């Protein structure tokens, strides 16, 4: 059942210490910044975070890492020009890193939501990142066996939700949102706008409401969005 939280703080209030958190976003696009801020405020710690990156600049996930609230991160691209908080924690041996090729990260999340027990992927075969993993040749191609990545909680961002939790996204901010929504026991979405059931064209719903537990409405003006973008882009 989809419920609407009054504030971002209410939305994340039940996140427990030691949880595995799926965190949407590719860089800043689609990163649920206000939900992460609320999580920071809320104090949950010993977290395992699954995100494409390991935080950038001095906001969101980067601050969670700075405060040593993340004991382990599973991601594809931690090192960026502005990933200084992760870099410091990593070099100090204060955060565990599981590095996963980006497509395997996406597919492992998809498998969790789709009830697939494991799958053979060609990505990473023969590389350091597949060391110790089960491999198999099928029809002349070599594959690595990879397992699902499940979350206790997913924090994602979408453009709009209807009252039943159906979601539409905006441009490349869609990224990991749909697969993470399905891969967590409890999915919390921040949206710019909440609309009545029946307002979204049923053909265009990207994430059906069945995957959404909690909606937090965080209005953002398009102007701000563009400006924020101009200020915070950094080369991968």
């Amino acid at each position, binding site marked *: 059942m989809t419920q609407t939280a009054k504030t971002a703080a209410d939305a994340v209030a039940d996140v427990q210490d030691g949880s595995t958190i799926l965190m949407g976003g590719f860089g800043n*696009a689609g990163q649920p910044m206000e939900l992460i801020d609320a999580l920071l405020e809320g104090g949950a710690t010993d977290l395992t975070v699954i995100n494409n990156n390991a935080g950038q600049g001095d906001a969101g996930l980067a601050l969670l890492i700075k405060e040593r609230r993340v004991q382990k991160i599973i991601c594809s691209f931690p090192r960026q020009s502005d990933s200084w908080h992760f870099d410091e924690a990593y070099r100090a041996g204060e955060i565990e890193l599981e590095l996963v090729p980006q497509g395997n990260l996406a597919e492992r999340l998809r498998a969790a939501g789709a009830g697939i027990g494991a799958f053979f992927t*060609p*990505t990473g075969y023969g590389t350091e990142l597949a060391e110790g993993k089960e491999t198999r040749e099928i029809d002349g191609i070599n594959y690595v066996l990879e397992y699902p990545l499940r979350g206790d909680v997913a924090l994602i961002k979408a453009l709009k939700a209807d009252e039943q939790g159906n979601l539409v996204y905006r441009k490349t901010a869609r990224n990991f949102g749909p697969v993470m929504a399905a891969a967590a026991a409890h999915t919390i979405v921040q949206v710019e706008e909440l609309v009545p059931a029946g307002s979204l064209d049923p053909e265009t719903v990207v994430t059906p409401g069945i995957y959404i537990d909690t909606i937090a409405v965080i209005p953002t003006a398009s102007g701000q969005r563009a400006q924020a973008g101009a200020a915070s882009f950094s080369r991968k």
Partner: protein
Amino acid sequence: MPIRETLPSRPDTSERLSREQLAELVAADIAPSSYVNLGIGQPTKVSDYLKPEQKITLHTENGMLGMGPAAQGDQVDEDLINAGKIPVTELPGTSYFHHADSFSMMRGGHLDVCVLGAFQVSANGDLANWSTGAPDAIPAVGGAMDLAIGAKEVFVMMSLFARDGTPKIVPECTYPVTGLGCVTRVYTDHGVFLITEHEGERRLKLREHYGITREELASRLDFDLHY
């Protein structure tokens, strides 16, 4: 076949290619109507030389087909970025999709060409471009391994020799590999190499050379060069 074999006008072969010439050469070699992913860094420059009449559709692995040029001024939108997190634009016919769908598109062999940078390529097409293996480095892989194994053709763009003069096409990669036997062409300042299946073996063949004689090239590489 989505690969063009002949160029309208080949560059002068007496001098090594500049980065711009190399990007232009790669762009011209991509067949019309191809779906293409250009990796971060040097390969991004290829897009400057793609001609509208080639009707190339660009893919970016963070969930978009039909990517347009980098965004300028008011076009900048933090929800519309490429895999390098640079603000970009959309063209008519764009589509958006989620990460699992985007990487399925790559892994499933649907892209015609992907162009990547590299630290090393082996003569049988192994690629090393994600890690130098330095003990103190923070590792990061991103979509490199997915790009390496996914596209029908994997083009590498790089300088043929490292700063210390050692060749970057090698009998066997000494850097950590990104993918095995995946590279099909190597575009370098000193020559273009094709890697093709020959009697069950993948082997490297020189297509043309720039600013270096065939003999000198052969003498500086640590393996047998085919022509």
